[in-house]
């Protein structure tokens, strides 16, 4: 290696000024994203324990790289690191996808509950949810990944692109086709008669 240690992300000897700036930048850019990171890590790994490990490892890498981060789009920056870290830790996963459907389905409720707003909404939600589960199970995993990250995990197109390592245009076309397939699978009756308030 011809490079001096400073460009390699080794946190070893850094001047105190740099270290303090890094610490500040880390607090500012990374700390507000912890919940999103954990949520997406859960979607990538499909289980809570792996998600926490992955998030910790991502935080270490982000800390070593924060001195070179320009401060723009911290969430997309972190999700790119999350994806690389995930690929290093779990090489078996298919590229451009999230966890397999069974583990997404199974582990999701282990996360904190989001209470429905009313009993009526709960019934409506559960019924629609059943249909949705079947529709999502039939999607191509690459289509399902985009739908999951944008519609369930609430990422922007650019953030989903970073998390999956694909261009934004690819996110948009897969998302659009995934939604059309689910919409046709459910049909107008299910989607209109059970409209959520």
């Amino acid at each position, binding site marked *: 290696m011809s490079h001096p240690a400073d460009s390699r992300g080794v946190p070893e000897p850094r001047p105190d000024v740099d270290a303090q700036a890094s610490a500040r930048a880390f607090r500012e850019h990374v700390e507000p994203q912890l919940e999103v990171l*954990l949520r997406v890590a859960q979607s990538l790994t499909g289980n809570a324990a792996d998600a926490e490990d992955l998030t910790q490892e991502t935080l270490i890498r982000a800390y070593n790289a924060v001195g070179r981060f320009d401060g723009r789009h911290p969430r997309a920056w972190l999700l790119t690191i999350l994806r690389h870290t995930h690929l290093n830790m779990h090489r078996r996963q298919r590229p451009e996808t999230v966890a397999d459907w069974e583990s997404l389905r199974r582990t999701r*409720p282990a996360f904190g509950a989001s209470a429905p707003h009313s009993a009526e909404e709960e019934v409506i939600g559960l019924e629609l949810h059943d249909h949705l589960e079947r529709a999502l199970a039939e999607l191509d995993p690459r289509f399902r990944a985009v739908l999951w990250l944008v519609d369930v995990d609430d990422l*922007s197109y650019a953030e989903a692109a970073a998390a999956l390592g694909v261009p934004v245009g690819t996110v948009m076309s897969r998302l659009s086709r995934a939604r059309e397939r689910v919409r046709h699978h459910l049909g107008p009756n299910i989607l209109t008669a059970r409209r959520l308030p």
Partner: protein
Amino acid sequence: MIRSLRAVVTCHWSARRIQRYLDADPAALLTPGEVSRLESHLATCETCAQVANEHRTLHRALSRWPGRPAPDPVAVARLRGFVDQLVGEEQ
């Protein structure tokens, strides 16, 4: 006949923009001109209005997937502690 052909063209044009209109994602915003053209079409075309409603319902249902949106607060607290460890020595 010409009139109905124009309507079909507008439906097709609208169909390709409904999701972007509803998402309003910063990476793919419609122009103000596109928004007003689409909105006036949705106000008069039942078919396209129905499609837009179905997309709204679908997104709402997915965004309320059980367990969304709050991750386990205990795990989040552990991660905050981890951040404190990482940063702590420098402050």
